[in-house]
């Protein structure tokens, strides 16, 4: 609406429109479509054969390893989403209840880890979790355990913990926004009508923050399920996830078509999860 009057005819508005539509098409839609196309190709003796077929998808459903790994990964990521949301909620709640500038200052502090490289964070967590890592040394020093525990060393628990820690900021933010949007008047009304703090929370605040919770959980789930680096770095020999299978198809296996098919399936799972999240969100309202 900046170019009122000349919007239809000017060169610059048109160029801007081409740019505004063109960039997402080139940077997002085309790569996605090429992924989808590749998933119907196949590899023969190290060469990609460009015949369309459903072989890759057939292999996904018939081979014994892919479905169980996908399922296990989904369960893991659901747990990560649940944990991150449960930890994120009280933090967001506390932040919203702060007055004045300190609220946003502290929110900013929560988001600071996002400015740091992902890999550096994983490395740091790795030195905390290891057999002689900080956590074990601390527990030994505190006398809580008598020998290094392997409970959180290079297994699925470590992946769960690491992903949760890394993704908590993504849970806090949407919950914070949904809590902040609840009108003060509604809470005051609830108080005026004699509800206790707990009742107000249970019947007013919590239901109104459900959209935030669902967004947070979906966010975290989607980010966790696409992650192949964390399982690789802290998962040890048992932390094998679907992301790592996809990754291996593009690296060592050199089977791009099959990798694309797996990625497409993963994308469909993600779309389904987002849809379910949306559905749940509406049902609550």
């Amino acid at each position, binding site marked *: 609406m900046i170019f009122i009057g000349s919007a239809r005819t000017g060169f610059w508005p048109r160029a801007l429109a081409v740019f505004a539509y063109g960039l997402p098409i080139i940077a997002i839609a085309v790569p996605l479509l090429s992924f989808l196309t590749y998933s119907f190709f196949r590899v023969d003796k190290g060469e990609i054969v460009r015949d369309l077929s459903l072989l890759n998808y057939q292999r996904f459903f018939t081979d014994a390893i892919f479905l169980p790994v996908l399922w296990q990964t989904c369960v893991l990521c659901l747990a990560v989403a649940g944990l991150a949301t449960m930890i994120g909620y009280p933090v967001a709640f506390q932040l919203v209840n702060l007055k004045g500038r300190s609220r946003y200052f502290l929110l900013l502090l929560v988001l600071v880890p996002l400015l740091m490289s992902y890999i550096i964070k994983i490395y740091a967590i790795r*030195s905390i979790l290891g057999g002689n890592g900080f956590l074990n040394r601390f527990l030994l020093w505190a006398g809580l355990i008598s020998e290094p525990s392997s409970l959180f060393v290079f297994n699925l628990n470590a992946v769960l913990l690491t992903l949760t820690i890394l993704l908590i900021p993504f849970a806090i933010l949407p919950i914070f926004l949904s809590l902040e949007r609840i009108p003060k008047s509604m809470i005051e009304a609830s108080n005026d009508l004699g509800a206790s703090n707990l009742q107000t929370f249970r019947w007013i605040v919590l239901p109104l923050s459900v959209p935030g919770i669902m967004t947070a959980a979906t966010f975290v789930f989607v980010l966790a399920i696409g992650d192949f680096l964390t399982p690789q770095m802290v998962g040890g020999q048992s932390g094998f996830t679907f992301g790592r299978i996809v990754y291996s*198809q593009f690296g060592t296996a050199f089977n791009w078509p099959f990798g694309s098919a797996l990625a497409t399936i993963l994308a469909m799972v993600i779309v389904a999860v987002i849809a379910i999240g949306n559905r749940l969100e509406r049902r609550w309202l």
Partner: protein
Amino acid sequence: MTMKINRRTALGLALAAPAILRSTRAFAAKELRVMAWQGYADDDWIKEFQDHTGATAKVVFIGTDDEIWAKIKGSEGKDFDVFAVNTAQLQRYIDGNLTTPHDLAKLPNQREVLPRFQDLTKVKGVMRHGKVHSIPFCFDSIGLIYDKDKVNPPPDSFEILWDPKYKGKILAYDNGEHNFSFTALTLGIEDPFHLTDEQMAKVKDKLIALKKNVLSFYTTPDEALQLYKNNDVALIWANYGQQQVKAMKDAGANIEYVNPKEGALAWLDTWAMTSGVRDVDLAEAWVNFLLQAKIGRQLSERTGFGNTVVETGSAGANDKLVWLDFVEDPTKRSDLWNEIKAQP
């Protein structure tokens, strides 16, 4: 000392002088086009070679095997005179008639190399139909790193990786291809690069057992070092060989390196002449020049890799090395490796 030139040395000098002069004049104003990996043609060597021959050496450094192929194949060998290539890759250049065989008579320094590299018929891959297509130059083995405080006596077999005593104290490498090869060697299979379906199944079972003994699979030397620092690690399957040993020793680790008796996988880089070599004598002079003990020693000091002239930590004189080759089906190995990792 200066006055000590007796008749014999004088005679020697007199005889040698024309030869030296010839060698400096022979290649004046000529150019040698070299394609090499970083570290195989350092500036000081190039300068010395140029001073010695009078020719100029123009070096192009490459980053991947495929880049070498693209450049050599792309020009049908005409853009370069001599190039560095590993023995596995070399085969497709020979197949494509992209190499010119070496004349050992022009490589006197090849006679002085380590026993392992003396008889080139015993170095798999460098010869074909009785002709020497490339000259070994640089190599490294993939052995075992062990912590001297935790593993005693020193291991002599890969079997130690399956020893329940070290459960959760072992680091392995995250790559199906190599893991299948070295496990096949451990099982006593003759050709670890071409496994039958039956052998493949056996190796797979053995790798599933290995997985249960392993703390984690690493991908980079840095990663392995960090894992070693923060965990009780006793043994590492050292995909990065001496590079990894050096990094760990620099970090103060009390470790040692060994090539187990079943044979360690090893890569071997060689010098080959292209089919389009302009001046064979100059190209041979380059290879011969690099086969000096001094250069070999510097190569190993600077890169950490083994050279073919002077003994290094990469391999003892009696260690069995199995030169890497292309495997029967990389995709299949990778798929099986995924299956192994997906095992509960």
